[in-house]
């Protein structure tokens, strides 16, 4: 969108998904005099929050309790969650969800008009609010439309951020390229909140949208901010085999069953309980995602999965739910299966396999979204507070966007109010950045022959082979070496497209460079965590090791290439580490 006048704001939010929009509203409500801007590489309603399906957890029913929600979250996260953060999260969740209801979110309802809730994986009670099975879509659109009523919220739609502006030890904005014109310019702000989402695109097979390339993580990492717990990558157990399109956990919550090639409910062989006709909370198909995805891998080893053109798969069977329940509770599942698999789940079983879905790790923040760099905040999937520990429970991430988006917004507003001026070097820093971008991508010369698509494909292979559901020192080291080589080759990147008008090849090249940083951080953190916990499974170190690893990893960017990993203790308040029990 065309812009006039100087790009100066009090609070700048990078990313217009759920966390970014919630943060923007929080700033506007904290101090209506502040100038706020949301800068995003896509129009906000295209953000990946839009794809979230199943629901958002918050205690609302009398038979539920905050302690239960906290315990489910902490045990689900294999005790790597910071318990003070989890306690704040479960306490603030209901109010945040009601706020969204007041903003028009079309939550599914009980007959009497109150909020309806459904069961979800790893949750002891029903506490997942839902808008049929397009929960993220409705949350995002409700929030985006609500931001339109706040005059102080300005937007930079389709601006691609290339770096943070850091002067005098504090973050004071970003440098961004306007996609429509190719204009590279500084956007100054007294505080900056990164809400850029996750990085599923470092893997080849993912539910994540094309835009999820870890941009915020990488630009923070490059500015010296550590990334926390990056070894914890969540595989969702039920993706469609070719596309990786997500079949929501709600399908299992409503009663869907996972069957191997013999039609056997194989989860019963993996300490997840005994099969019942009706879904049982915290049992079988309603176990946590890490355990279900790992069970699939074991079934595959035993030769009990089915073979298809896109690899091994199992069946998700929802036929017994009947057309009426499917159409009312999970209509999107039916729509997606019909459209993309050419099957009708009312009559046929759905082929599924585990698929990269979410990263528990992210930019290291405290309970208020503050990072170690003054003036820089983060919230949502791009951040790691951590409430998700070693494995996130389904339906906690949408709520996280609200609770921690709001917290980051409030604190960033206060921080901005306390700052009086901008550093003197901002213009010069932005000019240097502009020169770097132009030299690397637009006016490059010399012997350059590497292509974005080739390098990206090789990175995908390395990540899938080395850092998938099960990892070993050998697999991780080998992938780390390949990444190092790819980075070298990236120095010879050549764009066929030198246009300044909506150059999507430039965007892809920048995103690839961001993904290299994120991938490096994942590999190095995974290599150094010589234990198995939650989604991080080392076949060479199969046990959880609380003695040495009840702590968060913090990876820092170094000059040499591979990350430097440090550790910080996990905050334990009321739930000492214990055994994760499901189905018993």
């Amino acid at each position, binding site marked *: 969108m065309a812009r006039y006048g100087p790009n100066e704001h009090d609070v700048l939010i990078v990313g217009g998904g759920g966390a970014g929009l919630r943060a923007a509203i929080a700033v506007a409500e904290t101090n209506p005099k502040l100038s706020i801007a949301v800068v995003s590489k896509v129009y906000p309603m295209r953000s990946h929050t*839009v794809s979230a399906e199943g629901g958002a957890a918050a205690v609302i029913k009398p038979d539920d309790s905050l302690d239960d929600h906290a315990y489910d979250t902490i045990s689900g996260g294999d005790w790597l969650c910071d318990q003070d953060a989890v306690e704040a999260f479960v306490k603030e969740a209901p109010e945040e969800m009601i706020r969204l*209801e007041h903003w*028009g979110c079309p*939550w599914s*309802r009980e007959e009497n008009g109150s909020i309806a809730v459904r069961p979800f994986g790893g949750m002891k009670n029903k506490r997942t609010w839902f808008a049929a099975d397009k929960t993220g879509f*409705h949350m995002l659109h409700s929030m985006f439309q609500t931001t*339109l009523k706040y005059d102080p919220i300005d937007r930079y739609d389709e601006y691609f951020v290339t770096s943070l502006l850091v002067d005098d030890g504090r973050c004071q904005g970003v440098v961004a390229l306007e996609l429509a014109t190719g204009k590279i310019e500084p956007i100054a702000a007294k505080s900056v909140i990164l809400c850029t989402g996750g990085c599923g695109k470092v893997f080849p097979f993912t539910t994540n949208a094309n835009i999820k390339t870890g941009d915020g993580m990488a630009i923070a990492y490059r500015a010296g901010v550590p990334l926390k717990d990056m070894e914890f990558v969540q595989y969702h157990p039920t993706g469609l085999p070719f596309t990786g399109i997500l079949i929501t956990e709600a399908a299992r919550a409503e009663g869907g069953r996972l069957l191997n090639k013999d039609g056997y409910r194989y989860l019963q062989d993996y300490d997840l309980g005994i099969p019942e006709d009706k879904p049982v909370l915290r049992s079988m198909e309603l176990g946590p995602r890490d355990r279900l995805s790992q069970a699939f891998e074991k079934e595959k080893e035993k030769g009990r999965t089915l073979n298809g053109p896109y690899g091994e798969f199992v069946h998700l069977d929802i036929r017994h739910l009947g057309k009426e329940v499917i159409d009312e509770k999970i209509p999107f599942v039916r729509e997606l299966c019909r459209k*993309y698999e050419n099957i009708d789940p009312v009559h046929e079983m759905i082929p599924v396999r585990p698929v990269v879905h979410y990263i528990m790790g992210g930019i290291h923040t405290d309970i208020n979204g503050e990072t170690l760099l003054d003036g820089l905040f983060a919230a949502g999937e791009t951040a790691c507070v951590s409430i998700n520990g070693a494995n996130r429970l389904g339906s906690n991430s949408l709520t996280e966007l609200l609770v921690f988006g709001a917290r980051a917004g409030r604190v960033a507003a206060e921080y901005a109010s306390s700052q009086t001026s901008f550093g003197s070097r901002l213009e010069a820093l932005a000019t240097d950045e502009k020169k770097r971008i132009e030299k690397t991508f637009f006016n490059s010369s010399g012997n350059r022959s590497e*292509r974005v698509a080739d390098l990206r494909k090789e990175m995908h292979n390395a990540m899938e082979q080395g850092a998938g559901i099960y990892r070993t020192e050998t697999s991780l080291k080998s992938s780390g070496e390949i990444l190092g080589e790819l980075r070298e080759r990236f120095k010879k990147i050549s764009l066929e497209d030198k246009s300044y008008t909506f150059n999507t*090849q430039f965007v892809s090249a920048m995103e690839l460079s961001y993904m290299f940083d994120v991938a490096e951080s994942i590999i190095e953190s995974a290599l150094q965590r010589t234990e198995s916990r939650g989604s991080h499974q080392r076949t060479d170190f199969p046990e959880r090791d609380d003695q040495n690893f009840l702590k968060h990893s913090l990876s820092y960017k170094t000059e040499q290439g591979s990350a430097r990993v440090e550790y910080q203790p996990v905050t334990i308040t009321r739930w000492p580490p214990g055994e994760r029990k499901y189905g018993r």
Partner: protein
Amino acid sequence: METTITLQILRYIPEKDPDPFYQEYEVPIREEWVILDALNYIKDHIDGTLSYRWSCRMGVCGSCGMMVNEKPILTCETFLEKYMPGPVRIAPLNYFGVIRDLVVETDGFMEKVKRVKPWIIRDREKAPSEGEYLQTPEQLSEYKQYSMCINCMLCYSACPVVGLEPEFIGPAAIALAQRYNYDNRDEGENQRNDVLLADDGIYECTLVGECSEVCPKKVDPAGAIQRYKVQGATEWWTSVLLPFGKK
């Protein structure tokens, strides 16, 4: 031998091309491929300069609408095989300015969305501590269909009125206004009426119904417009004939 199909894609890079032109690409046909997969194949293997928007690849982010053989569709949910033996013509969405190749100008649409005040308007807003507004499943179903719009803008490209009168507020924005008007939590109908009844508002619509035909989410903007016109006419007569009645 691999079967292929020819795509004829409208290209336009303003710094370079005086006018848009069709460029041909031959791509493999695979049964699981949607049109978008073929575009990505071109981008990765044949011509890295082709520009288009896409993101979710599951029909919900609304980015990848294009004209395919003269019809506005979402390229991520339309299979390539359907167009055998080809060729397939792919162009940017009708009635929007073209920034480059298949990328159209969106800010005008965004302004129309904002103009209908798509947020809950109330005289008095409840505090979160007072709990949720009650809304029965029946009340939800009053507006639910209109809340399913993904802002893909296909309906604008199908609408002959938008073609003639670019200022027309358009199907998606009207459906969005109705989404809030029919929500029992909302009291903002009068404010939205000011927008809908303006010169570029709802009465420009000639009820061709193309918008509902092309809508990938069955939002039925034409139905929303029809419902408004019937109701609007009734309310107008009520206000003229019964000045002391409800109002």
